[in-house]
C-alpha cells in the first residue's frame, strides 16, 4: 500500500469516525446523566433527517432554516419521548431494566410510525432539491488525496458541539443541575432542583445533538428511510461504550476508534470487507472484557 493510499484511507476514516463521534456524544450524554441507555437515539436521528427534508420540500424553508427547524423539532421529539415513555417509569420507581425495555419499544414504535407516515421507500437528501448548497458537496484535493469538504464540516461540528456541551454542563445553571441529578437524583430533588425539568433538558440537548449528526449524515449519505438510524445508532452506542459510556470525550474517542478500525479492516483485509460490522462488535467485546468501563470511563461503585 502506497503512502498516498494510506493517507486516503486515513482521511476516509476520520470522516466516518467524526460522524460516529457526533452521534455517540448525544448517546453518552443521556446515559451519563440518567444512567439510561436510550436505544431510541438512532431513531431520533432518523427523524431529524425527515424533519429537515420535509421542511425544505413541503414547507419550502431555505436550507439553513430547515436545519434550525430540524434541531428544534428533534429536541421537542426528545422531550416528548421522555415525557410519555420514561417519566411515568421514573414516577413509578420502576426497575432500571424497564427503562431499557421501554427504550427498545420506543425505537420500534418510531420506526414503524415512520413507515406509516413517511412511507417505506427511501427519500433523497440531495442538494438538487435544495436541502443544502451544492458547494458543500465539493471535494478538496491535497497532493492527490481527496477529501470531501463535508469531512471538515463534520469535524468542525463535532468540536463545536463538544465545546458547547462542555460549556453547558460546566458553566450554566442547568448544567450544574444536570451534574447534580447525575450524582444523586433524590438528593438533587431535596436541594430544590426541578429534576423533571432537568431531565427533560438533558433529553432535548441529546436529541439536538442527534439532529446535528443526522443532518450531516444525510448530507454525506443522501438517503433517508425509516431504518436509516438503526446501524449508525448501534455504532454510536458501541463507540460510546468503547470510549467509556457517560464520558463525553470518551464518546468522541470511541467514534474515531470505530471509524478508523472499520476503514482499516477493509483497507488491509479487503476480503473481509463484507463482515466489517462484525468487527465493531468484536471491538466492543474486547473492550468489555479488558476494560469494562471503556477507555476513558471511570469506575464508579454502584449506588445503593
Amino acid at each position, binding site marked *: 500500500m502506497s503512502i498516498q493510499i494510506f493517507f486516503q484511507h486515513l482521511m476516509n476514516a476520520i470522516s466516518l469516525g467524526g460522524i460516529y463521534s457526533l452521534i455517540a456524544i448525544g448517546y453518552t450524554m443521556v446515559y451519563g446523566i440518567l444512567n439510561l441507555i436510550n436505544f431510541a437515539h438512532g431513531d431520533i436521528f432518523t427523524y431529524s433527517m425527515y424533519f429537515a427534508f420535509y421542511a425544505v420540500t413541503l414547507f419550502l424553508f431555505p436550507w439553513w432554516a430547515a436545519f434550525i427547524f430540524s434541531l428544534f423539532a428533534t429536541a421537542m421529539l426528545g422531550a416528548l419521548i421522555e415525557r410519555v415513555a420514561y417519566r411515568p417509569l421514573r414516577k413509578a420507581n420502576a426497575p432500571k431494566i424497564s427503562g431499557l425495555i421501554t427504550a427498545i419499544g420506543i425505537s420500534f414504535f418510531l420506526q414503524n410510525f415512520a413507515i406509516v407516515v413517511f412511507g*417505506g421507500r427511501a427519500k433523497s437528501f440531495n442538494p438538487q432539491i435544495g436541502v443544502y448548497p451544492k458547494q458543500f458537496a465539493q471535494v478538496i484535493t491535497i497532493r492527490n488525496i481527496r477529501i470531501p469538504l463535508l469531512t471538515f464540516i463534520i469535524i468542525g461540528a463535532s468540536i463545536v458541539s463538544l465545546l458547547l456541551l462542555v460549556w453547558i454542563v460546566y458553566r450554566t445553571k442547568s448544567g450544574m443541575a444536570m451534574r447534580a441529578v447525575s450524582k444523586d437524583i433524590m438528593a438533587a430533588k431535596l436541594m430544590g432542583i426541578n429534576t423533571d425539568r432537568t431531565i427533560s433538558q438533558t433529553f432535548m440537548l441529546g436529541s439536538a445533538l442527534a439532529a446535528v449528526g443526522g443532518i450531516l449524515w444525510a448530507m454525506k449519505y443522501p438517503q433517508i428511510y425509516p431504518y436509516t438510524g438503526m446501524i449508525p445508532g448501534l455504532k454510536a452506542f458501541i463507540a460510546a461504550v468503547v470510549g467509556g459510556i457517560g464520558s463525553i470525550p470518551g464518546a468522541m474517542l470511541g467514534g474515531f476508534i470505530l471509524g478508523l478500525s472499520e476503514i482499516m479492516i477493509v483497507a488491509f483485509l479487503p476480503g473481509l470487507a*463484507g463482515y466489517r460490522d462484525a468487527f465493531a462488535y468484536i471491538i466492543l467485546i474486547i473492550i468489555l472484557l479488558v476494560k469494562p468501563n471503556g477507555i476513558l470511563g471511570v469506575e464508579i461503585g454502584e449506588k445503593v
Partner: protein
Amino acid sequence: MKRLYLILLLLGLVVSIFGQEVIKIGMNFELTGAVSGYGQMSRDGVLLANKLKPTVNIGGKEIKVEVVAVDNKSDKSEAANAIRRLIDREKVVAVIGPATSSAALSAAPIAEERKIPMVVNTATNPLVAQNRTYVFRTCFEDTLQGALLATFAWEDLGVKNVAIMVDVAQDYVVGLSNYFKRSFAMYGGTFFEEYYTTGDQDFTAQLTDALSKNPDAIFMPGYYAEIALICKQARELGFTGPFFAGDGADAPELIQIGGEYVEGLSYTTYFHEDAELSPATKPFVEAYQKEYGRRADAFGALAYDAYMVIVDAIERAQSTDPVKIRDEIAKTKDFPGVAGTITYPDGSGNPIKPAVINTVQNGEFVFRTVVEPAIF
C-alpha cells in the same frame, strides 16, 4: 378496540358467507425495508392487473379474484413467514413474488412443499426455480444477464479491467457477479471484487482499494440504494470511468439519491416504456400512466405479467386447485406478457426473454437497446 375486533369479525363472517365465489392470489413483497422500492413497484403492477382483469371464468361463471399483500420487510426470514401466512391463513391458490432473490429463495421451498404455485416477477438468481416444479418466473435468469453484461462491457463500453462491488449478503449479487465473471473472462477481460453488506453506507475504503488497482469501469450488480451511494463516493474519490449495473439499478430512487453521480450509468433490465417487447406493451404503458400518473417500470410490468400468467392458467385449468393451476402455468406458451412473450420450456420455470439496456441521462432512464438472447 374490542368493538373494532367485533366489527372485523362480523365483516369476516359476512365475507365468508356471501363471498364464497372469491379466489385469492397472494403477494409476498418487499413493501418496507432496504429494498421497498422494488416491492412497492411490484405491488402496483399486480394491483393494476387485478383492476383490469378482476375475475376469472370457471365453468361459465365469473369468479372474483382477490389479491392479498403481505410485507416481507426485505428480509429472508420474513419472506418465509409471509408465504406461510398467505397459504395457511389466507388460503391463496397462487403467490406472486418476492421481488428479490434472497427473499424468493427462502420462500420457494415452502411453495414447493405445500404445492402452491409461486410466480416471481424479478428474482433472477437461477437457484430460485432450479429443481422446483412449483416455482416460475416472468423475468430472465442471471446466467443470461451476466453474459449480456459481459458482452455490453466488452463491446459497447470497451473496458478491459473491471472492479466489481459485491454485496455478500445478497444471493442475487453474488450470483450475477459470478456469471458476469465467467463470460467476461471468456472475452479476455480482467476483474477483481470488493465486498460489502446490504445497508452499508460507507464504501470509501473499498473504493480507495479498488481505485488503486486502476479499473476501467465499476460494475455494481447490487441494489439501487447501495449503487447510488457507491457512484457518489467513487466520483468523489476521483473515478471518472463508466459505471454499469444489473436490473437492481432499476428504481427511481437510484436517480433521486444518486443525482448527478449516476449520470451515464447503464444497466440491463427487462422493460422500458419505449421498448416494444410484445403487442401487450403499449396498452399496459397507457393503462399504467392513467392509473398512477407516472411512467411504467420494470418491476411493475413483470409483476403484472405474473398475475396475468396465473389468471390465464386458472382459466385454462377451469379449476381453483393449486396443483392443476401449476400444471397449466407450466404449459404456458407464447403468452403475450407486457415485458415480452412468455413460454416455459419443458420442465423449466424460466422463460427465454430479451433484455433491455437503459442508461441514465439528464436524470432519466433512457432506453438504449434491446438485446435478444442468442446462444448463451
